[in-house]
């Protein structure tokens, strides 16, 4: 049995009442945009939070979240006034002066009182009678003055309670602290020492290999390409330990006392990075127009010349993307660095340092946030510096 279904009338896409920018907005596109927005938020919010937290005052960081960073927060405090020894005599009256905040200056007193139960009994600037005689005045900036006609004789200073407002305060103190005192600065340099050669060496080797595999004719070329693709899937963890013991044996053979050197990490990262590098670059280079190479050959260029003057400049997008991959991977790597460099303090990389900070100073948020941000700021810089090479249309005007 079939039933005749009446054709639904076509729904007009854009009715006259809608603004024109809405006309092209279908449900699908709206969903795409929404998903994009969510992704952007997921990526940027934690980063922004980390950055803001790392710049906040460490006291504020401890009591409130980063989203309150711009609002004034209130805390209560207590301070003990000096004993009779601190008194000074001026014109027949006796005074004890001081500041409830000590030397801290970014807070203001909004109210004060003499008991724990009522810390905000009197607004700032007012005065309160003291049980030990005289009266005390606390100004908004925290300065207090206890004045009396008779000399003070108390041996135990009374306490004043106060409510203070902390103005939002941003500081780079955390960074200074992290980079100098906590040894993160040293690790920062170590990380660079590991990462930069470990990025450049594989690129150099891979670019040459990729050119040969893409544009030179020699026996077993296809087999080598297949081998490289096969190596892509070898898990790092599987080869790490055999590689280390092999490397240590070789190091001993050359009479080295300590196998844990930067050279070892560089070589390890190079080896692990090469298959992907060769694979990516070969595919890219093989896609370059063959007429360009042939034209250059007729113009008299050798393979080396073609490589340096044609293939390298035209492969910039591929080189840049691989640099970013490799840089990020090496920068964020902990495993290979730990295996080949160990946990020696003077060669500890940033990731290793963060791990040890988490253990030893896990409560010091200001150190952790600043340390974490120091770690991610370098990849960010690398990414933004190289992203302009991700341009399409590098081949514009060459063929057709």
């Amino acid at each position: 049995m079939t039933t005749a279904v009446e054709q639904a009338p076509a729904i007009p896409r854009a009715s006259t009442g809608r603004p024109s920018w809405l006309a092209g907005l279908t449900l699908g596109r709206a969903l795409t945009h929404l998903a994009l927005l969510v992704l952007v938020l997921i990526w940027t919010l934690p980063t922004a939070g980390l950055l803001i937290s790392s710049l906040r005052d460490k006291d504020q960081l401890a009591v409130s979240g980063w989203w309150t960073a711009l609002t004034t927060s209130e805390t209560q405090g207590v301070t003990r006034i000096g004993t009779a020894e601190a008194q000074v005599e001026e014109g027949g009256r006796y005074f004890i002066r001081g500041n409830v905040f000590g030397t801290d200056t970014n807070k203001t007193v909004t109210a004060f009182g003499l008991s724990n139960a009522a810390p905000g009994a009197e607004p700032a600037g007012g005065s309160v009678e003291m049980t030990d005689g005289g009266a005390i005045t606390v100004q908004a900036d925290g300065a207090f003055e206890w004045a009396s006609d008779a000399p003070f004789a108390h041996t135990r200073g009374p306490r004043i309670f106060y409510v203070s407002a902390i103005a939002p305060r941003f500081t780079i103190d955390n960074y200074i602290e992290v980079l100098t005192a906590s040894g993160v600065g040293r690790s920062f340099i170590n990380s660079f020492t590991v990462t930069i050669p470990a990025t450049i060496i594989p690129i150099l080797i891979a670019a040459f290999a990729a050119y040969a595999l893409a544009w030179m004719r020699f026996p077993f070329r296809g087999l080598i390409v297949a081998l490289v693709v096969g190596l892509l899937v070898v898990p790092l963890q599987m080869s790490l330990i055999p590689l280390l013991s092999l490397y240590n044996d070789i190091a001993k053979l050359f009479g080295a006392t300590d196998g844990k050197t930067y050279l070892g990490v560089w070589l390890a990262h190079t080896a692990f990075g090469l298959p992907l590098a060769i694979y990516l670059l070969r595919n890219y280079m093989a896609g370059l127009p063959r007429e360009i190479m042939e034209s250059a050959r007729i113009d008299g260029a050798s393979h080396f010349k073609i490589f340096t003057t044609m293939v390298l400049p035209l492969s910039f997008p591929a080189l840049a993307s691989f640099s970013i991959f490799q840089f990020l991977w090496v920068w964020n790597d902990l495993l290979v660095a730990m295996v080949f460099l160990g946990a020696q303090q003077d060669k500890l990389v940033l990731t290793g340092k963060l791990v040890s900070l988490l253990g030893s100073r896990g409560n010091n948020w200001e150190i952790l946030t600043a340390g974490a941000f120091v770690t991610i700021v370098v990849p960010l810089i690398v990414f933004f510096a190289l992203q302009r090479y991700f341009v399409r249309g590098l081949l514009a005007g060459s063929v057709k």
Partner: protein
Amino acid sequence: MSHLKLTDVSKDYGHVQVLKHINLDIVSGEFMVFVGPSGSGKSTLLRTIAGLETITGGTLEIDGEVVNHRAPSKRGIAMVFQSYALYPHMNVFDNMAYALKIANESKDEIKRKVEAAAETLQLSKYLKRLPGQLSGGQRQRVAIGRAIVRDPKVFLFDEPLSNLDAALRVATRLQIAKLHQEMSKSTMIYVTHDQVEAMTLADRICVLRDGMLEQVGTPMELYENPQSLFVAGFIGSPKMNFFNGAIAGKYGAETLGVRPEHLEISDREGSWSGKVIHQENLGSDNFIYIDMGGEEPVVVRADGASHYTTGAPISIAPMANKTYRFDKAGKPIKG
């Protein structure tokens, strides 16, 4: 001096034989055009001459020296590719100067040569531009300029105009003809699909078919004395009409060929009748398509002022002595 001599040249890729025993002499200063249908091996022949493909049989001589194994850059040739193959990251000046730089010429010399070539090709204004910022015609001229600056003995062109629009094609064709006159000592070898390019540019045309040489000769020789059915059908536009069966039998041939320009509309004795199915009036000429029961319509060139109604009956007859007779093997019958 740049005399090219191909002796028994063959080229195969594995089992596929692409060029079959080609014998060809191209004399110094000659403009030789290779024509043939797609896949006939024109580009391959050009590339073997350039040295981009190895020769698998026979010899290639330039000025009496066998150059089979000589590197492309040592053969004194320059090639203009169908796709231009400009270096996209270099500006026009550097594109043209590339070969000279590799040859270690002095800076002044390079500048002088490039500027002279740019002058001839009206590219002086664009020397600082990247290929991506040029129009198709300008890119083509840069590609030609890149060939000129090297002052080669032999120019190789692989369908250099096929990416240009009609007007530009005519202009660039004239430019290439002029170039040939100016560089009268250089040999030029030119691959094309285009009838008009072949007929107007060539000193001699070489017709290729399935990797074999069909016929070599001046454009008029090929037009007037095609040595095979294939050449007869290939040279001339619109192509020659072929008749089989009774019509050809009357002339004592297996196939009778008559060019559209050699058919007249007349109902004299022995004329053939058919029906007009279409006409293309180009102003100067009116090409009439006539259905005579064969597989393809017969084309007749008539005066541009004429008009024929579609569907109307029509009688046509060949002009005297303007018919081509071919035997079973597609060879012309003499006499």
